[in-house]
């Protein structure tokens, strides 16, 4: 597997990015804040209304460094995409399959299997790690329900039914999400997923981590030559990275939810890190966002053994590995798409 490279996060809204040789230079009011060699970077994520020079954009596009602009709250603004890497045959196959509902469903169901399987094992682990803190019986029951749903999904060849199973699984899992918050209960609770805007602290963190994951996933897909906008489960909608969302399904639980739970349970965040706006929207403070990003980066460096490849890789490369496996399936090297089944 390739080496995991760094992501440069720009969290100050008034920093301008420019190119100098093979370095990105960070400028604030004409003053140099720092420079970072680009060959160590996998991507640059800029929060807020910063700018970047066309020369830097060109360099990034040429050298497969993804460059992404988000609003201060993490909402997608723009991505710099270069001449797509020439894998035309792969893309045509992707488009052809996405037109075929049954074939799309056969790929999509493995995304969903991955999602439910990973959620199931998050619940199972919680009962193992905290048998005295959670209602084990309730967790076991939910786990069995998820197992049953996986078997249904395995035989399902219809996208609508798949979405139905996925919805049921989400209800079962979300019901227990709050029980997995074991510290700071008065400040961190989960009742309902809310987004655009997130209405509580937990949702604010979930939204932010999903944004980061979606970016990593979309970049991984583009880097292996797939079109991140054409999905199998998520259908086409202008501006939506449907395939990235597809691939993210199986990674949400293990890469984002668990991360957020750890932040709360290890008291790495506190209520002071959040601000509630007049309309009820909750946003993270700049300071908290910075800490969150550092922790996210550190988490990406941690190693795991990939369940299908059997190879030790860092968590940060999981989206890349899955994108590569998906591409190899589309090119007929693999009989199915192997989801990331983690426990």
């Amino acid at each position, binding site marked *: *597997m*390739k080496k995991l490279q760094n992501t440069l996060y720009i969290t100050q809204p008034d920093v301008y990015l420019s190119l100098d040789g093979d370095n990105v230079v960070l400028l604030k009011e004409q003053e140099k804040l720092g420079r970072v060699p680009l060959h160590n970077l996998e991507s640059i994520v800029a929060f807020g209304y910063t700018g970047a020079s066309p020369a830097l954009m060109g360099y990034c596009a040429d050298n497969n460094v993804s460059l992404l602009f988000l609003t201060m709250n993490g909402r997608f603004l723009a991505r710099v995409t270069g001449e797509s*890497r*020439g*894998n*035309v*045959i*792969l893309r045509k196959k992707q488009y052809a399959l996405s037109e075929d509902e049954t074939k799309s469903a056969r790929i999509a169901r*493995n995304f969903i*299997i991955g999602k439910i*399987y990973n959620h199931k094992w998050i619940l199972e682990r919680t009962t193992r790690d905290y048998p005295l803190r959670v209602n084990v019986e309730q967790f076991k029951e939910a786990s069995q329900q998820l*197992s049953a749903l*996986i*078997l249904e999904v*395995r035989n399902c060849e219809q996208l609508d039914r798949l979405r139905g199973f996925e919805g049921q699984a989400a209800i079962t899992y979300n019901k227990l999400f709050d029980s997995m918050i074991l510290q700071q209960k008065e400040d961190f609770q989960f009742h309902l997923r809310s987004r655009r805007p997130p209405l509580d602290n937990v949702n604010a963190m979930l939204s932010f981590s999903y944004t980061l994951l979606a970016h990593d996933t979309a970049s991984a897909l583009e880097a*292996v*030559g797939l079109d991140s906008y054409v999905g199998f489960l998520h259908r086409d909608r202008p501006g939506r990275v449907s395939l990235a969302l597809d691939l993210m399904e199986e990674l949400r639980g293990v890469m984002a939810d668990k991360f957020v739970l750890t932040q709360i349970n290890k008291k790495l965040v506190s209520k002071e890190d959040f601000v509630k706006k007049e309309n009820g929207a909750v946003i993270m403070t700049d300071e908290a966002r910075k800490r969150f990003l550092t922790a996210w980066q550190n988490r990406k460096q941690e190693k795991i053994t990939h*369940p*299908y*490849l*059997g*190879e030790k890789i860092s968590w940060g490369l999981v989206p890349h590995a899955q994108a*590569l*496996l998906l591409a*190899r*399936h589309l*090119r*007929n*090297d*693999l*009989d*199915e*798409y*192997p*989801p990331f*089944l983690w426990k």
Partner: protein
Amino acid sequence: MAYSDDDDALMLSGIQHFHFCKRQWALIHIEQQWAEDFRTIEGQHLHRNADQPFTREKRGDKLVVRAMPVKSRQLGITGICDVVEFIRDNSGVEINGAEGKYVAYPVEYKRGKPKLEDIDVLQLTAQAMCLEEMLLCDVRTGYIFYNEIKHRIEVPLTDELKLKVGSILEEMQDYYRRGYTPKVRTGAFCESCSLQHICLPKLMNKQTVKSYVEGKIRE
């Protein structure tokens, strides 16, 4: 079979990739994937010396041409000869812009040293076949310059080699038409391949995904 459309011509240098590993060739030439490593960069550097298309040296009876584009409709390939030496010889053919008759000798530049396998020889043979077709002549000898030993070795371009190139190219054309990336036997040589992170050679001997998924979900 003749290939009339120049756009469909395969890259001559691909014969090397194909001979090293059919899958590596398909990943580069069909799937258009490429990963640089130190070997590919070193190769580019070496070729910079030979790659001077606008110089043409004349030394006595010898005319040296660098970076000469060649193609063969018959084989459906196109490429560049690092160097072609034309040596004045009455058994040769007339060439554009020079007096008298000449015999052509392709010279290929390689990093490294001579190999046991005829991987470099096949590429040289294909270049010779292009020259034969374009100049209507016979090309029976070529040279390969190896950077590590700093001198060239003479290569007889036999009919047998030319037949072999013909049949390799037929297989390449077939894969190319079908857009097919073959699976191959893997081995220690995969370690020296710059595309190993894209190819995932270990996948070739893996259990099916079906049994992976079903094994996991029934645990």
